[in-house]
Every structure is written in C-alpha cells, then in structure tokens.
C-alpha cells in the first residue's frame, strides 16, 4: 500500500515520518522533476507499506515549484505515486489554518488519517480540542493525537491507518469543491467557503481559545530581528558555523587523508606488479579517498543547517535578510540556497525551489555556484600552503587565513554583483512574494537532525562519489597509457640519454616516468591546451588538472597528486605541497610562483568547474540554456580574473 504523508510546513511532519519509518528511508526524486521524494518503509502486522513524504504546503494549489508536485500527484490517479491513503499531519495548536489543507485532501476522496500533532504545545497554549466532536465532522477520517517530537503516538497512527483503509471515503464540501490548478478566482472562492466551514467546526470543537490576538512572547524575536543585534547575531552564527566546520573537520580529514595514503602505499608494495594492481593502488583507492575526505565537512554543514532549521531560526534569517536581498533581484529565501552553496552548490540550487518568483529563482540559481563551496576548500588550502607564507600580520591575523577569507568574500561579492546585473537584464512581470510562516522556536531533536545529516551524506557519497571515482580511474588510465609506440620510444630515448650522461639509476627512473607522462594521452591533451592558459601563467600539467577538475573542483588536487604520484619513483612519499614547491620550470624558477598561485585561486573562485551542478541546474530549469549561460559567464569571469591577477603579480 502507498501512503502519502502530507501537511503544512512546520507541523512536525518530518518528525512523524522519522517516527514511523526510523532509518528505513531513502531520498530520491519524483519522476520527471527534482523535487525531493523521501520514502520510508512502515511495517504494519508484518506487511511493509510505502510511506511517501510530500513537501509541506498550505493548500493543494501550488505557489512554488516544489509544492506543485502535491497537486500533480494527488489530482492524477494514474500517477505512479498516487497514494492509497493519506496521513495528514496538522499542528494542533493552529488547527484552523491547518484544517484547510486537510479538508481539501478529504474532499479529494482519499482515505484519510488526521494526526493532531504537537498536542503538548496546544495544551500549553490552553487550546483544547474535542476530538470526538471533530471526528463527527469528518466521519470517514481517522483522527489521532501525537507528539512526534518526543516519539509519542506511533501506535495510535498505525492503528488509525489500519482502520482508515477499511473506511469508505467521504467528502466535506463535496467532491466538486476543488478547482483547476490555474483558476485563481475559483481558489479565492474556495478559500472563503472552506474557511467559513472550518470556522464553524472550530467553534464547536475547540474550547478556551483567546479570541483577540494577544502579543505572544516574542522577546527572543525582538533580539534576533533587531536592527543591530539581528545582523550581529546572524553574522556571529555564520562565523561560528564556518569556524567549526574548518577546525572540527580538520581532524577526521587528516586521518582519512593519512589512512588512504598509507593504504595506497601498502598496496603498491604488497600487490603483485601489474596494470590491475596499479589501477587499484593509484586509481581506485585514492579515488575513494577523495570522496570520503569531504564527508566530515558536509556532515558538519548539514548538521548546522538542520539545527538552524529545526530551531526555527532559519525563517528569522530569511525575514531580516529579505529587504537587503530585494534590491539585488533576490528574495529573503535566496539566503538559504546561497548559504547552502557554501557547502555545495547542488543542494543550494535545489533549495531555490522554495522561491515562488521565477526571476528571483533563476537569479539565485545562476549566482549560487559563485559562493565558494566545500569542494574549493582543498584547492584553496593547497594553493595557499604553496604560495602564502604562514606568518602573522599585525601579530594577530594569519596571512593564510586572511587570504582564505578574501577568497570567500570575493565569491560572495561577485554573487551579489552578478545578481544585480541579472536583475537589470531578466524581464519579468510576476509578483515577487515573501509570505512566510515564522515557526515557534523549538529545541532541535537530535534524532531529526542526525537522520537529516545521515541522509544527505549518503546522497553525496553515492551520487557525487560515483562521478569522482569514475574520473579518478579515467585520469589514471589516461596518464598510464598513450598512443601506441610513442610512450615506449620516449622511454627508450630517456634511458639511452641517461646512460650516455652517466646518471644514477634513480635519476634515470625519474626521467623515464616524466617522459612517459608527457607522452601519455593526458600529456597530449595538456600540451594542446597550453597556449590558451599560458597568459594565466599555467603550464601543461596545471592544464591537465584544470581539465580534469571540470568534473569537480576537488579533482584538481587529486589530479596534481596523481600526476606527481605517477612520476613518483621514490619509496618515501613526500607531501604533495613539498613536491609542488620543488617543481621548477626549465629556467629554474618555481612553477608555482606567487602570481601563479594567486591566479589559480581567483580562477577557482569564479570558474564553473562542476559538471554535477550543471546537470542539476538543467534539471531544475528544464533546459540547457541556463546551465550554458552559467558556464560561459563564470568561465569569462574566471579567465579574465586569473589573467589580470597573473599579469599584476608576475
């Protein structure tokens, strides 16, 4: 049986979902659209049922992209996700508005379970719901109370699902009370009729509600939305989050880095010599390591995002940022996609779905990848370690830290600047909308936070991981093999020359490895692009890394590592940084000079070096036009930026 989980935003719907399914859930997409489709397994009397979590909505008529799926599925019995039964979660402390969606779903003629969630909060507010009377209004629905946040009510919901299945379906306003999706006039009339019906229900079933609005306890809001303290606290929270991501993640990341390095070296020594062993020790193992290394950062970022969202703070951040974002052609809601993009542009771009206005949504998607994502961190840290001295400036500020901050700022500044330019270019006459509920503050539940982190990390490792692993293997193959004959001929030439000049055996092996790489497939590609990147200060080896990192930025570091590991004939492995520092051009000057390092950093701030993001943008905008525009404008920015920086500091 398929069970749909529906409800308004902020009703604790995901708590109910987690309570019913535990860890037996998976995240995918609804067919044809990239709206998150969370699915879980609910076992009732040893029979497994599919529980599908739908995006939170106030009405079945959508006002944004992700809400559309609710209407699309529920109005189409042929849809593969059309449910046999609907579980509608409502906030018991705000029954009136919540019943709106419930009565619509009831009128669709689906067997319904109404979950009065957060009944503890309702009691605290002095709201008393007579569920027997409520039941008499909706004879065909099962009605249960729950407090899913603390795990209360699972048994009752399961029981209700069993009972609801055997019920005949009913209708409240009648089956014909629902409108076509685009008929706004009809929506207005329906809303008025529905609410007047709901008013009379509420009058009957709810006792002692304060009739006139009293100022709620919003002391916390007074501070968090204050014209000075609001922004101050917002900035402080961001700083804290990013600081902890960097400092806490460094420990497991070093451990992962070290372990995979050791494993790779151990395999190289212990596996029998051959192409297949090389593939494992130099292609696959470093490839997997390159994926796993991001897990600590991604997990921490999603942990903090989940915490901010669960607590109700994120909506306040949207609230105080809306007015500032508007002149830039953005919406307060753009804050979430842009901030998420600091972890990864992919969830960032997808989070833009909550923006109802098409123009604001497009602008948000277009500029989101300019925010420096976590995939750039390994690139930044490597380049900074290479060319920026680890000294203090004025005794307190570390130069390396300042440069890192500068790179993040550069990305943010250009994201806002480009947004402003796009606002002037893109035409639209759609109204821009905020209309957002500010949920009551809650203490986050660890279970919800940890499930959310676990799911997101899983998606990253499995989806992005496949891509990164594949390219690592491809890269290894391209660097190991070359046009037939050429590589062997080059090797023999190097050996002959070595003998002639009486070089040591070690030196000969080094030269052989280096000429082999130069004559491999990838060496050819690198040489081919060299003229185009010379004005930026890069040689063909950097060129190879730029090309391969088009798949994902972090591959840049991996590529350099692979290129130099392939060349590596020493038994002891120097650290990559030391090795790169020692690289010299033919004239004896270092390859990674100050100007080249800076130029590369600026290049990576701007360049759209992420295939996965482009694919996701295409999915989200339904055409290749936007991702191509994005690729081009970011490419131009990157090339010009890197060119100017290199020429200035050369």
């Amino acid at each position, binding site marked *: 049986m398929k069970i749909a989980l529906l409800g308004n935003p902020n009703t604790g719907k995901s708590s109910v979902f987690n309570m019913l399914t535990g860890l037996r859930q998976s995240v995918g997409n609804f067919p044809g659209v990239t709206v998150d489709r969370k699915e879980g397994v609910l076992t009732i009397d040893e029979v497994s049922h599919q529980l599908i979590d739908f995006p939170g909505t106030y009405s079945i008529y959508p006002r944004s992209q992700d809400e559309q799926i609710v209407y699309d599925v529920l109005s189409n019995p042929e849809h593969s996700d059309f449910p046999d039964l609907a579980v509608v979660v409502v906030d018991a402390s*705000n029954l009136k508005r919540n019943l709106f969606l419930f009565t619509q779903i009831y009128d669709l003629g689906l067997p319904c379970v109404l979950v009065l969630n957060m009944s503890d909060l309702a009691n605290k507010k002095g709201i008393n719901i007579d569920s027997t009377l409520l039941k008499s209004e909706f004879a065909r629905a099962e009605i249960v109370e729950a407090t899913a946040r603390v795990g209360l009510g699972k048994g009752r919901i399961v029981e209700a699902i069993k009972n609801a299945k055997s019920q005949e379906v009913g209708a409240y306003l009648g089956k014909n009370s629902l409108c076509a999706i685009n008929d706004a006039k009809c929506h207005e009339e329906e809303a008025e009729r529905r609410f007047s019906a709901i008013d009379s229900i509420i009058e009957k079933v709810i006792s002692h509600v304060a009739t006139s609005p009293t100022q709620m306890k919003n002391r916390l809001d*007074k501070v968090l*939305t204050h014209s000075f303290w609001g922004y101050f606290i917002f900035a402080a929270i961001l700083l804290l989050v990013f600081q902890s991501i960097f400092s806490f993640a460094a420990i497991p990341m070093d451990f992962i880095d070290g372990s995979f390095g050791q494993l790779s070296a151990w395999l190289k020594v212990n596996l029998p010599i051959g192409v297949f062993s090389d593939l494992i020790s130099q292609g696959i193992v470093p490839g997997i390591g390159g994926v796993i290394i991001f897990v600590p950062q991604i997990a921490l970022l999603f942990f903090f995002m989940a915490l901010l969202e669960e607590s109700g703070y994120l909506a306040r951040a949207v609230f*105080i940022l809306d007015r*500032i974002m508007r002149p830039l052609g953005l919406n307060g809601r753009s804050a979430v996609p842009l901030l998420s993009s600091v972890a990864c542009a992919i969830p960032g771009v997808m989070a833009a779905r909550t923006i109802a206005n098409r123009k604001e949504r497009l602008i948000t998607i277009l500029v989101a990848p300019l925010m420096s994502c976590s995939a750039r961190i390994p690139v930044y840290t490597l380049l900074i370690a290479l060319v920026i001295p680890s000294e203090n400036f004025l005794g307190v500020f570390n130069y390396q830290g300042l440069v890192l901050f500068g790179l993040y700022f550069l990305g943010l500044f250009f994201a806002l600047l480009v947004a402003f330019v796009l606002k002037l270019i893109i035409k639209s006459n759609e109204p821009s909308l905020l209309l*957002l509920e500010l949920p009551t503050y809650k203490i986050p539940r660890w279970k919800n936070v940890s499930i959310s982190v676990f799911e997101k990390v899983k998606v990253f490792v499995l989806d992005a991981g496949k891509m990164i692993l594949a390219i690592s293997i491809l890269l290894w193959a391209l660097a190991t093999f070359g046009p037939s004959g050429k590589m062997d001929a080059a090797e023999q030439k190097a050996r002959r020359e070595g003998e002639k000049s009486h070089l040591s055996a070690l030196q000969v092996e080094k030269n052989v490895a280096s000429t082999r790489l130069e004559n491999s497939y990838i060496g050819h590609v690198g040489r081919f692009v060299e003229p185009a990147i010379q004005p930026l200060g890069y040689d063909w080896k950097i060129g190879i890394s730029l090309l391969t990192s088009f798949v994902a930025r972090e591959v840049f570091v991996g590529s350099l590592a692979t290129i130099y590991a392939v060349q590596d004939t020493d038994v002891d492995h120097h650290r990559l940084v030391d090795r790169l520092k020692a690289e010299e051009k033919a004239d004896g000057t270092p390859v990674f000079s100050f100007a080249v390092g800076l130029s590369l950093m600026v290049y990576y701030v701007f360049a759209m070096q992420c295939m996965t993001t482009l694919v996701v943008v295409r999915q989200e905008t339904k055409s290749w036009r936007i991702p191509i525009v994005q690729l081009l404008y970011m490419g131009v920015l990157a090339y010009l930026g890197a060119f100017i920086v290199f020429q200035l500091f050369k």
Partner: protein
Amino acid sequence: MKLRLSDIKVGVPVRIVEIDKGDLRAKLLEMGLLKEREVIIAFKAPLGDPIAVEIEGSLLALRLEEASCITVETLVD
C-alpha cells in the same frame, strides 16, 4: 477607521476588512488572512520591512507591499 495593514504600528490590534483583488489574494486567503480576522503586527524587520503579523496564534512574515493589499480597521475607535 480604514487603513492599510502596511500603515499599522507594531502592537495595535486590527481587523481585516478586505483583501484587494489580484494575484496575491488567493494566496493570502489560503494562509488564513480572511475578512473579519483580527491581526496584530508583532514586530518588524530592520528597515521596517518585512513585517511579522500575528494571526490566531501563528506568525506570518509579509512584505509591506503584500501587507498593503490588506485593508484593516482599528478595533478601538
């Protein structure tokens, strides 16, 4: 006295009289902003926009532009 919700000060209880026709109307209605409902502006964002409106125990954030579609009357005359 009839006023626009966007002109109301923080903490003054008012009653909704009418919502202007237009694209926004259906969405405002669905959020529970209906005729006869009593609302109060709980607080405003820095720069006075958007505003947080308390209606029947929940808080809604509205831009001034959105709030200006809503005609209200003050409760105490």
